[in-house]
């Protein structure tokens, strides 16, 4: 057999850390053929990036590598710096996760794309720039000639990621290493990038090592899949094999942790992988997954597991992989102690024609004179107005979960914060429990603060790093108690218990917690005032799937038990579909579709909803999927004054001038379901459903290995 393009064998990597040697990779072997896409998946910390950096030779001095990495038959480990550099870009290209930080903010796009040619291929600058323009065109960027003089911050995330891809492939590499290239992007943009990569792979016969934690993305792009856990390959096989009939308990767990974009799933608890990622400076003996494995036996704890070759190219690191049952179901949903209120009763919180305008300096400047103190002419720079929220109305009923989805920058967070009066609206009214709180002075908001709380996306920035967990939660209790709280500690410990943390966490600092634990503290903090309403601003977006599942379960339980209402913000439709009673789809400050979850997930769709649904990746191989709806451009144009439908510039079903000039009417296919669109209802209703009508039965519990 010919030597594969990339062959990694028995790669081990340890990092020197202040706490001792950290075994990040342990005996990793995998191969990539030319023209083949191999996905590496695993949760955070499993060593995915380390593999990529080892291939590129970009590991720091603290890393110690053993084993072999062969590229086109040539050994890469031990190459000197110069030889390595010559391979980078020209033979092996790499694209990093975060386009926002991977481009140099102070160099133009053109220079950054052309660079590998100038310094690697000794091309003249002008020639390299011409090639850069061509390359930018190839990755699907409109008007590449104008782009070369732009700076990164003038581009949207999707465009930046394309630029990075263009720069990675411009010097003609044979292998492309992609480290979570779409994680930071919106689903619609992600889908575009995936299409682009797929095209490149086919056109250039590129080998691709595609790193991701998103099994849906794997399903869309990979030929073969390598599942990594704690630095060990636990399962290796073709996409259909691994996703369709996972052999390793860890893979099963990953798949079971995913909330599904299907109706039958709603309200069910998800089955996450229990336990927590091992400390790699002190890994457990035996099978490294044993402490979290529901199928564990004595033998698992005693013996380290070798990678067992199965049929074909398949391999799995579990001695009893052939005899595993389904991933255990999490049990039936709890009976809600607070039943859902009847539709039509007075909502708890209501936003009425809310707007929020932000001023932003306008590129290109411009000067306007205003008068200060009546006479003094005062120059000020012209700025453009961003309508973060635009005449939007939304109500959240008692005990109801309203999901809010939309792409980045559509104004979701702003809306959530306005409803808590954390951001002052520019116009409109907010009613809380029937009372108008729009104009209340901050001092008079104590009542609202007690009854309405917020949970944030970023577990790192949402806790004060210098404050013990107990203090952070206790402060909220104290603030809203009348007088002293004698049993403060006990109350905080009860709250900790409510979110599933042991009382000892009272004395911990945030940096001593894992991401999921921090999020639990954030939830406990929000619960401390006994709120009726919580704005959940992307509470699970930053978490690994299995942690995400536990948090979703927790939030569901809390709702059922306490009857709290949520405004649940997320860009991930499957998450929203899982937890929300009603869903509002937001685009550029406006709501384009709203209704019960069932109604929104089924036709008729607003064209944007349809696009979102069709772009959402699902991990079910071979599932019947409609062709993806392609949007033009990749972000909403930020026009200062706009008329008509905000979506018209990207809408694939744009009718014509009417969409640009006329505000779309509200269609009501059924009571409580509204769509803002010029297209007639009948037309919208003709669209076939995006999600298979019959939810995949196997998705509910687990997978049979049959």
């Amino acid at each position, binding site marked *: 057999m010919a030597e594969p393009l990339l062959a990694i064998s028995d790669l081990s990597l340890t990092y020197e850390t202040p706490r001792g040697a950290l075994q990040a990779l342990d005996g990793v072997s995998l191969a990539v053929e030319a023209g083949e896409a191999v996905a590496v998946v695993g949760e955070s910390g499993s060593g995915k990036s380390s593999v990529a950096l080892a291939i*590129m030779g*970009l590991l720091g001095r603290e890393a110690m590598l053993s084993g072999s990495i062969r590229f086109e038959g040539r050994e890469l480990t031990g190459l000197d*710096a110069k030889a390595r*550099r*010559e*391979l*980078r*870009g*020209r033979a092996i*290209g*790499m694209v*990093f996760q*975060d386009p926002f*930080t*991977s*481009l*140099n*903010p*102070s*160099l133009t796009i053109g220079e950054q794309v052309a*660079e*590998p040619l100038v*310094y*690697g291929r000794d091309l003249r600058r002008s020639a390299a720039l011409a090639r850069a323009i061509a390359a930018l065109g190839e990755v699907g960027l409109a008007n590449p000639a104008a782009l070369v003089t732009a*700076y990164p*911050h003038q581009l949207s995330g999707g465009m930046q990621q394309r630029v*990075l891809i263009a*720069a*990675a492939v411009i*010097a003609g590499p044979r292998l492309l290493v992609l480290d979570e290239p779409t994680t930071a992007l919106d689903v619609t943009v992600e889908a575009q990038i995936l299409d682009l990569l797929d095209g490149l792979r086919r056109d250039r016969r590129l080998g691709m090592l595609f790193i991701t934690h998103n099994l849906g993305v794997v399903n869309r792009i990979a030929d073969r899949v390598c599942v990594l856990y704690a630095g060990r390959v636990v399962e290796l096989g073709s996409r259909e094999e691994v996703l369709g009939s996972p052999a390793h308990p860890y893979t099963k767990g990953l798949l079971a942790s995913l909330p599904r974009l299907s109706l039958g799933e709603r309200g069910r608890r998800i089955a996450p992988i229990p336990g927590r990622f091992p400390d790699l400076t002190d890994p457990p003996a035996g099978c490294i997954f044993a402490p979290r494995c529901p199928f564990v036996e004595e033998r698992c704890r005693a013996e380290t597991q070798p990678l067992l070759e199965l049929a074909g190219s398949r391999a799995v690191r579990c001695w009893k992989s052939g005899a595993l049952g389904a991933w255990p179901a999490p049990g039936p949903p709890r009976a809600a102690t607070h039943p859902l209120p009847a539709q039509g009763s007075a909502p708890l919180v209501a936003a009425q024609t809310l707007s929020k305008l932000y*001023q*932003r*300096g*306008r*590129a*290109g*400047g*411009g*000067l306007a004179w205003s008068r200060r103190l009546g006479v003094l002419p005062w*120059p*000020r*720079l*012209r*700025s453009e107005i961003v309508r973060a929220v635009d005449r939007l109305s939304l109500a959240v009923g008692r005990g109801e979960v309203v999901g809010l989805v939309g792409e980045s920058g559509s104004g979701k967070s702003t809306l959530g914060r306005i409803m808590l009066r954390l951001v002052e609206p520019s116009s409109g009214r907010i009613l809380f429990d029937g009372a108008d709180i729009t104009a209340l002075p901050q001092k008079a908001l104590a009542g609202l603060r007690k009854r309405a709380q917020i949970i944030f996306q970023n577990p790192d920035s949402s806790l004060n790093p210098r404050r013990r967990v107990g203090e952070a939660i206790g402060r909220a209790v104290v603030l809203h108690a009348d007088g002293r709280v004698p049993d403060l500690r006990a109350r905080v410990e009860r709250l900790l218990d409510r979110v599933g943390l042991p009382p000892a966490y009272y004395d911990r600092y945030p940096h001593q917690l894992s991401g999921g634990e921090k999020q639990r503290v954030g939830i406990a903090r929000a619960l401390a005032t006994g709120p009726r309403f919580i704005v959940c601003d992307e509470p699970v977006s930053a978490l690994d799937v299995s942690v995400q599942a536990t948090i979703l379960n927790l939030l569901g339980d809390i709702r059922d038990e306490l009857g709290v209402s949520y405004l649940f913000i997320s860009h991930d439709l499957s998450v929203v579909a899982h937890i929300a009673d009603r869903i509002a789809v937001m685009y550029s400050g406006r709501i384009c579709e709203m209704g019960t979850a069932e109604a929104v997930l089924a036709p008729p769709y607003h064209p944007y909803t349809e696009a979102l649904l069709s772009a959402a990746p699902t991990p079910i191989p071979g599932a019947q999927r409609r062709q993806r709806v392609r949007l033009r451009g990749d972000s909403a144009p930020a026009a200062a004054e706009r008329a008509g439908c905000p979506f018209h510039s990207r809408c694939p079903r744009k009718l014509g001038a009417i969409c640009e000039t006329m505000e779309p009417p509200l269609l009501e296919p059924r009571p409580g379901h509204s769509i803002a669109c010029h297209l007639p209802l009948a037309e919208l209703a003709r669209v076939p459903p995006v999600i298979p009508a019959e939810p995949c039965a196997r998705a509910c519990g687990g997978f049979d290995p049959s």
Partner: protein
Amino acid sequence: MAFYVLKRLLAIAAILAVMSVLIFLITQILPGNVAQVIAGQFASPETVAAVAHRLGLDQPLLVQYWRWASGILGGDLGVSLVMERPVAPVLFHALGNSALLAALSFVFVVLVGIGLGILAAIRHGGILDHCASIFTYVGISVPEFFWGIVLILVFARYLDWLPSGGAAAWGEGLGPWISHLVLPAATLTFTLIAHVSRLTRSSMIETLRSQYVRNARAKGLPERVVLLRHALRNALLPTITVLAIDVGWLIGGVVVVEAVFAYPGIGRLLIFAIQHHDLPLIQASILVIAAIYCLANLIADLLYAYFNPKIRYGRASA
């Protein structure tokens, strides 16, 4: 961009106007009295009064301020009360000298400070890094007048390479000029370098850890290009602000070094003015120094914008 500059210039004008009032008030509060200084230790009150009258110091404050301010607006900086010569030529001569000294020191600081900072960052944690820190610590830990004397002793007295002080006359040519500037500039460099090099070091370390530097390496760029083109550009941003403050200081705040090296700069002139209560001279010099400081900051902000395209036009929200 042009409008931004215009706006900033207007703001500077406003600051200077406020300062002119402030300076005027401060100089009035200052104890002591120029008439007394001029008339001397043992002048009779009658003499002092007569001198004050001759200088117009007995007029109401508002009148004095108006006379002074209108003069300045008309481009007339007034006449030094003590030296009895027009302020403008004296001031601008001194300013010219200061600017030269500042320019040379600035070049030294930029070259050595930034260079050291980069080296220390690249060899972060190594011997070179520690040496650079020690060097900078020692530089800032002893007053500049001490270094001044030491440099004079070594380079002027024992080695006799450079003059001990003073400034060359305008007509003597470049060589003497530079030679007079080297020692004071080196002294200033010594005391300024710590700030610049440590800042450069830390921001360089941070930049070298950034994603885009890693990305540049992944593109196969030579290390030199990665360092200079990708990292340095961004790492210099915080340094620029500090350098602007240093420029302001170099122009007006180097009194001590000017005194040690007998260098006729604006700092010494101002001290002279303060000590003799020469109001027009104090006022004009402080105003000029403040103007330069503000301009230096403006330039720094523009440079900042140049190196950081993100804020190129975007300062409007302030």
